[in-house]
């Protein structure tokens, strides 16, 4: 390594946080460069200072530090990968364009086929109510209801009328209310068939 490593690399080197190959390169440079060696020494001195009392005790510093180290390594490797990227030649670019076109066409074909199947299956299934869940009866303030998720029949209780609701273990639900106009009692009931 002819040039001086940048400060970030020196800091990471001081904390032994560089990847193996980079760590070896920086070590070689630092061993023969007094300026960089001094920087590394100052970083190590800083890191050895007691800072625990300044830290927030409730924060889990160890996992946080590991995560930060991992992120730094990932960033460094990504930057190396970008640096290594070479622009393809015109002939290679044509090859890449052709491959991209084939890929896009294939994806479109898959999507179209999927859509066609979805529509066809939907058309076939339309008249048939598929029971996706067990048939349940329910008694609430708004009325009694029997439903299987697709089909629903609700006998409604007029709003703001006091009602009594109850169910039977045979699969019946009942609500009873007083008609505001006539004062007549009405009992709405839904039943599961035997």
């Amino acid at each position, binding site marked *: 390594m002819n040039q001086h490593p940048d400060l970030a690399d020196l800091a990471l080197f001081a904390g032994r946080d560089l990847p193996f190959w980079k760590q070896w390169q920086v070590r070689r440079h630092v061993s023969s460069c007094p300026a960089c060696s001094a920087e590394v020494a100052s970083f190590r001195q800083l890191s050895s200072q007691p800072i625990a009392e300044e830290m927030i005790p409730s924060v889990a510093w160890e996992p946080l530090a590991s995560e930060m180290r991992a992120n730094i390594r990932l960033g460094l490797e990504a930057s190396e990968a970008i640096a290594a990227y070479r622009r393809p030649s015109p002939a290679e670019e044509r090859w890449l364009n052709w491959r991209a076109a084939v890929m896009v066409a294939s994806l479109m074909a898959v999507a179209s086929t999927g859509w066609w199947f979805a529509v066809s299956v939907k058309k076939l299934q*339309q*008249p048939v*109510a598929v*029971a996706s*869940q*067990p*048939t*349940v*009866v*329910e*008694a*609430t*303030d708004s*009325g*009694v209801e*029997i*439903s*299987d*998720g*697709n*089909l*629903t*029949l*609700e*006998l*409604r*209780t*007029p709003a703001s009328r*006091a009602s*009594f*609701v*109850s*169910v*039977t*273990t*045979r*699969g019946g*639900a009942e609500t*009873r209310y*007083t*008609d505001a106009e*006539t*004062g*007549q*009692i*009405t*009992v*709405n*009931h*839904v*039943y*599961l*068939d035997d």
Partner: protein
Amino acid sequence: MSISTTRFLAAALLTLSAFGQETTLDPASSFKINFPKDSPVTLVTFDLGGSKATARGGAMTLDLNSGLLLRNSSSKRIRGVTLLVLAQDFTPGGRGSVAVPALDVAPGENFPVRIDLRMLRPLVVGNGPLVQVLLDGVLFDDLSFFGENRLNSRRSLTVWELEARRDRKHFQQLLEAQGPEALQRELVASVNRLQERPRLDVQISRRGRLPRPASAPATAYEPERTVRFSFLRLPDAPIELTGGAASVAGNEVKAPSIDILNKQSKAIRHLDLGWVVGTKDGAEFLAGTLPADVQLAGNAKTTILDEAALRLSSRTGSRVIIENLVGFAHAVEFADGQLWIPSRAALEDPRLARLLPPSPEEQRLVELYRKSGLTALLEDLRK
């Protein structure tokens, strides 16, 4: 513009018009009322005002707000009517009924019945009427019955009529013995009980499995445990509940079993047991009834087993955790057709009074008192 483009635009316009469109329903094609020729009640008028069909997405919602005016065409006074409501394309393995108990309709008089329905189904065009209304049963003042009785409405109408007679007699005796003020106090207490009564929404599935509620967190899991029933003992009950248990998990209870002893020498053919649920915060609710057809000989024992699953949810949104279960005898039908219901004295028990809803007749009398005052109530009780 090419033919294919024109077809596409036409299809798109039709599709758009289907979404969110409201249609007023034609009574003749959407509602069919089928009473037998010898029916003691006949249809006078029929109104579907405000009923509509709405297409939303791939589903169709129908709101049917119907008012029927029926006439007592028989020679006897009618005490109750049950109509069977069939909506073939909408009802997933079930049916509905609308009953009107606590009636007193003289021969030749008219009375209204209101049927408010909401139905939801996939957007498929079907043939025939959307809803059919049939007569399931009519109960007369001599306790005779007319009808197909497909919903066992004979039993329910008779129980309501017996409760009505019991409660009218109680109020009349109270009026005679202690005067209008005592009756007024009793009705005010009834009004207060109505208002204070805790309310829960209840779901039930007969197969022992309820669909997961949409609001339930994916990680919510309540371990199942067996909870033993305790029992409210009514002194005049012909049966004794001797033991029982159910499986409880959070706000769900399933597979109840109850041991029963017939204390009388008469055979029993049907039982209705009340089912009270106590929650962790100390509240108690009447969740429902456990009906059972039995062949229980005099002085014999049996056990009722059921696979049903029941879920309770609070209307205030607070979490319901079931802590204990209480059972009691609600109605008994003997093999000879006679019925037993709890006496008014048994219902004076503060716990039962708090838990049980009033009879339909008491509910009607309370409404009459609230709406028209004491004079109208006294006039009704003197009939």
